[in-house]
């Protein structure tokens, strides 16, 4: 596998007066060329901060990337100048956000916004940018794109807005598309359409994708590899096929257990007991131990390392 993005030991902390919130605490993963990596986990486990860190968009202060390397096409994005970073953003790496409602500027037409994004990175005339934009809108499945070009975000439905966002994201043919919960704010039928669209575009443009979601169904459908995140760390990291066939970490197993299964009759869905820990006060030892049903004394004492239990299958648990 040819590696496009290699994140190594990334640590992004948020500093407040007295506390340090370790939102991302030593995360490593790789995204191969043309492949899709899924980043899955509960709310607040550091998925979005990881994505923002890759683009160096973590609000600072209070946030800070403390350590790590983000190697994209051979250079470390954490070391290059801000001006150089700006030409990476949108051009090489683009991002699609969770909330299509608020990700578009309400005071400009969608066409104008997409055309501006194109003109930012390419030397094209206004009319060329407009043409390209209309093509993009058509490509992402927006009907009568000529007319939609001149409409404001509030005139579009949520699904259409997300399509427009995706159009903006792919406008400069990025090598990596980061999609941060692209379907969470949409209803189920639209979700499926948007995922299909993303898969189509990925195959057409040979884009790599980093897909952030908390939906295991989306992971199964879309990704080649998966990293399961919990409390700022990766708990299990494997190919999607392996992970779904043979989940090892108790947290991953818990996540699968909490899914409803076809043809099964149950009163309640199973839930993992307890809550996600506060990123300023992680439990000592394994961060999952207070909620783990396999917990033993050793789990509380020392931090657990991620280890490879079979080729390309990493688990942060000593018991498996």
């Amino acid at each position, binding site marked *: 596998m040819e590696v496009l993005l290699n994140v190594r030991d990334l640590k992004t902390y948020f500093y407040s007066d007295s506390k340090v919130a370790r939102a991302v605490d030593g995360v490593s993963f790789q995204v191969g060329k043309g492949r899709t990596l899924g980043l899955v986990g509960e709310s607040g486990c550091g998925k979005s901060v990881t994505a923002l860190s890759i683009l160096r968009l973590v609000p600072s*202060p209070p946030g800070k990337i403390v350590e790590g390397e983000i190697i994209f096409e051979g250079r470390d994005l954490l070391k290059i100048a801000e001006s150089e970073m*700006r030409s990476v953003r949108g051009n090489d790496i683009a*991002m699609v956000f969770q909330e299509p409602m608020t*990700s*578009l*500027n309400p*005071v400009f037409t969608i066409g104008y916004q997409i055309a*501006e994004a194109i003109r930012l990175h390419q030397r094209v005339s206004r009319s060329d940018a407009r043409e390209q934009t209309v093509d993009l809108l058509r490509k992402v499945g927006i009907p009568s794109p000529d007319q939609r070009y001149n409409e404001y975000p509030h005139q579009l439905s949520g699904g259409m807005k997300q399509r427009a966002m995706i159009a903006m994201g792919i406008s400069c043919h990025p090598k990596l598309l980061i999609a941060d919960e692209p379907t969470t704010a949409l209803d189920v039928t639209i979700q499926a359409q948007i995922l299909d669209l993303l898969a189509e575009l990925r195959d057409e443009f040979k884009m790599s994708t980093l897909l952030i979601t908390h939906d295991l169904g989306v992971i199964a459908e879309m990704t080649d590899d998966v990293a399961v995140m919990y409390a700022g760390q990766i708990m299990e990291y494997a190919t999607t096929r392996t992970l779904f066939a043979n989940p090892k970490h108790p947290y991953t197993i818990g996540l699968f257990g909490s899914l409803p299964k076809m043809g099964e009759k149950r009163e309640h869905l199973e839930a993992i007991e307890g809550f996600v820990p506060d990123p300023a006060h992680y439990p000592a030892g394994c961060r999952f131990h207070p909620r783990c049903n396999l917990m033993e004394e050793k789990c509380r004492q020392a931090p657990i390392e991620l280890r490879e239990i079979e080729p390309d299958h990493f688990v942060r648990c000593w018991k498996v």
Partner: protein
Amino acid sequence: MTRREKTRPAQAGITQTQLALRRLRRHKLAISSLWVLGFLYLVALFADFIAPYGFDDERRDLSYCPPMRLHFFDEAGTFHIRPFVYQYSYTFDEYFNRVYVQDRSVRFPVKAFVQGTEHRLMGFIPMKMRLLGVDEPARVYLLGADYRGRDLLSRIIYGSRVSLSIGFVGVAVSFTVGMLVGGISGFFGGRTDNVLMRMCEMVMMIPGFYLMLALRAAFPPGLSSVEVYLMIVLIMSFIGWAGLARVIRGMVLSIREKEFVTAARASGEGSLRIIIRHVLPNTLSYVIVAVTLSIPGYILGESALSLIGVGIQEPYASWGNLLTEAMKISAIQFHPWILIPGLLIFIAVMAFNFLGDGLRDAFDPKLAFEGE
């Protein structure tokens, strides 16, 4: 149906602006103010043509001549369809004040499109034609004359060019600065914010009028009229930007948290570009209202400076320096018409305030609007 839904556009294709304009149209006071202002600005634009005489066209023998009456009936009681004036001349009363009398033997009909003194319409079209006038040696001074015998109406019309434009020019300067400073301050936050806001407070801390006088003292005397005009704009903008910058900063603080700002950054836009292209346009509905409501301040400020004699200088007219003569109580007692420029200041200021109120109501989406 909730209130929120009610204010949503009913059909597709209606923008927020169209909606706001529709609401504005229902605001009677604001609409009449708009007409009043439209009229005033139209007159100011064509001042050279509409004013019967030049702003410095003086006739000493008509000093403090009262407003002249337009007659329709002559001495014999015959009706004339075209109004006319008589020539005015004066005698003295026992206190040696001038008393004007009309010479009723010769009628001077008021004519339209007469040839007057040469002027340039809107500054570049040379012409001699004026809207109204009478044949010499008579004069038609509808609002009376000042002490040099210049037509007050003409001077008010010429003065409106200064008084009405200074608001827009001043606002343009101070709002550009204010929005930029507020935008940068709110967007970057931290130390930048701290420094810029303390600067604003320093400007706001000094009472405006005294700051204005102090700044005026910093400019050399003997400036040309254009320089004086620019100086007034500069002085007033220097005072005016700070308050706006603070409000804009507050709004930017909330707008910068919106996801579209992150999205703009993710597509590689620079900070200044994001501030100007994405953040500030979202404050526009507030800014439009604030502009309308702060123009009166500039009109009043110019008037105040000119009134005390440090603004627009004679023989050029502004509504403020026309009132200089009205500072003497005796002048008001014997020649009350020289207060008329004050009335115009009042009308213009009120009209801007009513229009601003109307705009604020129209642009405020939280106000549910009735009747639909």
